[in-house]
């Protein structure tokens, strides 16, 4: 087995969550790289799509923002924000969308904060805000969440509730009036979490080489079930080769 980096591991973990036919909503950075790699590895008939309205962009160069002119080149359709979010809210196309997102804080039900830490009106730390995150999390069938595993990020209570996950359990979204669907996986720098279909609570699905479930729990403010966790399957030579040679040859993200 080849050597690989943590970022490569995380990217490949996301690639494995993308199925053929998915419409992949992504931001920039590692989420976009995962969407690009999925087209070469597991899901040749998936579509990359950005909240700015670009559908199926030919990403010859890595965009540094979702408003980067690089997302506008050789697309199927250059729509608008109104089109992009309608695609996700749409009761047919929205079911095909898998959203990739990140946040500053996450709770046990996969609800996210990307707004601020401390009091909302006079925060200790201010982040950029929802952007399209709340929209994606509200609408789409499935989301993949990237997080760095730290105690201040995996919290019991969010400082600000920006984007809905499973809210407070199996009936949470229904009671709230949200469409079906919700977070499916949380990919971190130490392991991968999923959500129980009964309780909708996060549990540890797998952990990376050189990491133990106990060390993972030490980095979280809340406790999750780890009994069924297994070692994560490392990236294969083929996955790594495609990621390195076809998706990010200049190593701008990796």
């Amino acid at each position, binding site marked *: 087995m080849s050597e690989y980096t943590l970022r490569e591991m995380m990217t490949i973990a996301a690639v494995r969550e993308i199925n053929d036919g998915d419409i992949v909503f992504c931001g*920039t*950075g590692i989420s976009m790289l995962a969407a690009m790699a999925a087209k070469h590895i597991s899901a040749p008939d998936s579509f990359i799509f950005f*909240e*700015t*309205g*670009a559908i199926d962009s030919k990403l*010859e*160069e890595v*965009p*540094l*923002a*979702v*408003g*980067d*002119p*690089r*997302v*506008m*080149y*050789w697309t199927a359709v*250059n*729509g*608008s*924000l*109104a089109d992009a*979010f309608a695609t996700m*809210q749409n*009761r047919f196309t929205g079911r095909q969308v898998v959203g990739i997102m990140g946040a500053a804080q996450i709770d046990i039900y996969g609800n996210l904060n990307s*707004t*601020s830490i401390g009091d*909302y*009106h*006079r*925060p*200790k*730390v*201010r*982040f*950029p*805000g*929802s*952007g*399209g*995150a*709340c*929209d994606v999390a*509200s*609408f789409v069938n499935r989301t993949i969440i990237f997080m760095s595993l730290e105690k201040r990020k995996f919290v019991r209570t969010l400082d*600000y*509730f*920006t*984007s*809905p996950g499973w*809210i407070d359990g199996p009936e*949470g*979204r229904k009671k*709230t*009036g*949200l*469409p079906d669907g919700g977070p499916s996986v949380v990919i971190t720098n130490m392991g991968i979490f999923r959500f129980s279909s009964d309780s909708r609570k996060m549990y540890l699905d797998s952990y990376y080489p050189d990491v133990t479930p106990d060390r993972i729990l030490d980095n979280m403010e809340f406790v999750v079930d780890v009994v069924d966790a297994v070692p994560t399957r490392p990236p294969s030579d083929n996955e790594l080769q495609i990621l390195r040679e076809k998706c990010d040859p200049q190593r701008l993200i990796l």
Partner: protein
Amino acid sequence: MGASHTKVIDLKSAIETYVPDGAHISIGGFTINRNPMAAVYEIIRQHKKGLHLYAHSNGQGVDELIGAGCVARLEIAYAGSGRFAPTCIRFRKAIERGDIGFEDYSNYQMTLRFMAGAMGVPFLPTRSGLGTDLIRQWGFQKTERQNDIKLPDEKLVVLDNPFGTWADTPKVVLVPAINPDVTIIHVQKADADGLSRINGLPFVDVEQAKASRHLIVTCEELVDTDELKSDPDRNQVPPFCVDAVVHVPWGAFPTACFGRYDYDPAYLNHYKQDAADDIRYKKYLQNFIYGPETHEQLLAKINPAQLDAIRADERTGYATGLDRR
């Protein structure tokens, strides 16, 4: 139409005429793309105060207006400038210091708010935001809203679907319309009467343009009407929406303008460093904005080789191979 109908004026006059202190304003573009930066810099140069700014994800322009002290209140979905500022720097400082009033929405909510304004309805529904603090946390409180005829009395309203279970939707979130006093967009081509064409993604520019009482269009190229009317499917804004047309080549600089030039990584990296420090930021304002009297003079301060490097490749619409570190 003869030349008497021209709406072409200079940028200084356009800002003097349509952007009074305290105006409710929105600007086009998205993060580091097609912000009407020449107009933003002219607003700063004229020391406009007390603006009420509506933004979805209009990154760089929003950050500079806030940094220069032009903004009193902000309604916003996202303040980031891609890799150059994951959170816009002067925005973050202003909020953490309590310098400006602010209220958070999502990008779709802001988009629909402009769309409602453009359509002439008081609100539009969406399923985005149910159960979140976007609904629970208000930046502007009830009394402030009731005492200000330019603010709706409520932030967002949750409504049971009045059509029962139609479309399998039990509840919707109503977002209130926005009708800014003035919107400024930057486009690739316009004619003297304001007919406008955007190349590349239009973002929310068209909804913002149509929602607004007044509209200033700044353009890379001022062209004959016939050139635009010979290919009408590609035009977005009709002349009757437009109050002023300003010809400003490089008018989105240092943000990108698809098919014309890329964002300038050198400028944005310098900005990032200057914005992080109050003293350096004052010097930045002096050197780059108050010092030059026009956008042309600001551009003259940029290394010509760098301007050349960010020129768009005809094939891709951006500067292929540009050093973006």
